[in-house]
């Protein structure tokens, strides 16, 4: 009993923990529902479209477009202004993120972007975006 419950606990890690573990290893995954075939993000234990059990985690193409954007103003001594945006992936799901590597004023709605995973020092893996230069719009 003790052994099997220990084993099942070790393998039955939740959706959030497994998704984060993948991010920590540098992999960005979304979900796709086996029942209704729709993409899901953020990952969860059931499909919010049809109610089916846990959708499978799959790798997205990683490309999308900025759907909404704001520049959060912050004093220079506190780190300065930064970008927060919502990106719509080509799979049709959206997520909050930020666009890096370009002037804040150039991060505009419709900008084509490509995902990458960063792991901040001492932090957890997270998805950020950069301009998808060369991608077809």
């Amino acid at each position, binding site marked *: 009993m003790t052994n099997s419950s220990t084993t099942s606990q070790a393998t039955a890690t939740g959706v*959030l923990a497994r998704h*984060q573990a993948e991010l920590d290893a540098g992999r960005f995954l979304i979900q796709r529902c086996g029942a209704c075939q729709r993409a899901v993000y*953020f990952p969860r234990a059931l499909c919010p479209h049809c109610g089916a059990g846990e959708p499978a985690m799959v790798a997205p193409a990683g490309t999308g477009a900025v*759907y*909404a*954007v*704001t*520049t*959060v*103003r912050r004093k220079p001594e506190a780190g300065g202004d*930064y970008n*927060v*945006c*919502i990106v719509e992936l080509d799979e049709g799901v*959206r*997520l*909050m*993120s*930020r666009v890096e590597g370009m002037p804040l004023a150039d991060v505009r*709605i*419709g900008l084509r972007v490509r995902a990458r995973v960063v792991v901040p020092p001492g*932090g*957890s893996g*997270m998805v950020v975006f950069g301009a998808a230069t060369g991608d077809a719009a």
Partner: protein
Amino acid sequence: MTTLKQLRGSAAIAGVATYGCGEAPGHTDMELLAEAARRAVADAGLAMKDIDGLCTASASATMWAMPVIEYLGLRPSYIDSTMLGGSSFIAHLLPAMQALASGQCNAVLVCYGSAQRTATFGRKEVVASRRFLDPQPYETPYEPMQPLSAYALAASRHMHEFGTTRRDLAEVAVAARAWARLNPEAFMRGPLSIDDVLGARMVCDPLSVRDSCLVTDGAGAFVLVRADHARDLPREPVHVLGTGTAVWNRQISSMHDLTMTAARDSGRAAFGMAGLAPRDIDVVQLYDAFTINVLLFLEDLGFCAKGEGGAFVRDGAIAPGGRLPVNTNGGGLSCVHPGMYGIFALIEAVRQLRGEGGERQVAGAVTALAHGNGGTLSSQATAVLGLAQAL
């Protein structure tokens, strides 16, 4: 079975009060709530012992109804502490009407108080606690300055899709201030121009500090009774003709369309129950946490078409003397905003219908709409109110 149509006008607001609006240093949330409650019950011509229903919610205490009941010395047979953020106290209306109609209770007190402006336990601590108690692990890592960033994202999308401008947003803040200047209770009453708003410090583009609500203390309370009971009480009854609540999402990144809120559903439900349309409404109170809210809610509630909110508010159209009086107390932008504003929108609607608006009174108002919003464009609750001649 009682249908919603049968509930139309079955209950009326018999008493209202606000207390401690602006700054109330040295007070607790509970003290402000209790004084507003005491005054609302007295305004209704009732005694606290007549109150046998209680609706309340708190942004910090998860079991808030219990200490409120204890503090006020109540023994309620009906209790609702559903917490939907700032829309809560309008969302409390429909279940309370059902409880009154069934005879479960006879007089429902709806109350809220917050000392968030002057409290030593400030917003920073609240935000830090929520990271553990109510996590949003798919947004928090990007450090959105919430709730402001969420509304800024919605504003950015509205501007992109419909050509809405910062000047359109500024119209909302300027109209709110113009109303506030006529309201002795309003916290900010200095002159404010479009250029002042456009030139104000940016916080989350495209929203500036003047596109953002106040952070004040304040408490509000109202008493709901059956309509026949209300007719025997001293105040002119303000009937609840229709009301509805809707939630589609919690996180801004989960919104299906950043330019359309669940107010579309809550408004449809409220107007449907009331048998009225936006053109029938004399005075409108919208939860203006940020200027973009007013545009979104004017559209989603049907006062104008989707995307036309900017054009609708131009040239002082919702300011004193404009075509539609909106947020006649000065709103959350200029009057009061102690964390959850919805109850103040409802109270101002009642005051206008009772003709107690003083300098800001909308002449001959018979119907009013009050709309609450909670979270980051997450929960929406609408109430259509009217005097006896609207029944």
